């Protein structure tokens, strides 16, 4: 009961692996996405023990605008171009 209303308790959804598609990554795993293709990517990368990301291309470290990075590299384990 919160503020007089009943709520349903939902369990957190942990996972072993997340498979995510992003647009660009640097070697630290910082990610930017392409428009609506972002969808579940950022939240999935945080919820799995192993976050694996496929991107269109790698970019040099420092070339992604820090203000534009959506998923910080700390949530990412592996990045591959596909």
């Amino acid at each position, binding site marked *: 009961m919160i503020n007089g209303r009943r709520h*349903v308790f*939902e369990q957190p959804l942990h996972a072993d692996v997340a498979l*995510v598609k992003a647009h660009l*990554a640097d070697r*630290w795993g910082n990610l930017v996405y392409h428009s609506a293709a972002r*969808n579940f990517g950022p939240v*999935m990368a945080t919820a799995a023990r192993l976050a694996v990301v496929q991107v269109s291309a790698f970019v040099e470290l420092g070339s992604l605008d820090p203000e534009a990075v959506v998923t910080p590299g700390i949530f990412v384990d592996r990045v591959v171009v*596909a």
Partner: protein
Amino acid sequence: MIDKRVATLAEAVAGVQDGDTVLVGGFGNSGVPVELVHAVLDMGARDLTVVTNNAGSGESDIAALIRERRVRKIVCSFPRSTGSVWFEKLWRAGEIELELVPQGTLSERMRAAGAGSAGSSPRPGRTRRLRTGRRSE
């Protein structure tokens, strides 16, 4: 030096095991990591629990995983869509388990996991049906 880049799809999905819970991004055809899903298919992992928005369509990616009997259970918001023939076929045959989760709740449950939270109450349980069999207080 931190370098998370790997050269091949096989290296990217190395270590995925039978019985794993796998989150797969994508909304319909947008943002699906098609090549990574096919890499999991190629490496042979089975008894997977797949968490994703749609239960696949056509013969590609998630639909292919389902077709090849790699998915024991799917947790999703929209199991049926145009071309979701393999999910429907296995569902009717009782060969795949479905946990239907509304989209916002699906996203919120993963957010809670990522935040290290013990759970969350993303919305009021307004109907008896929603509360049936679940904790509500």
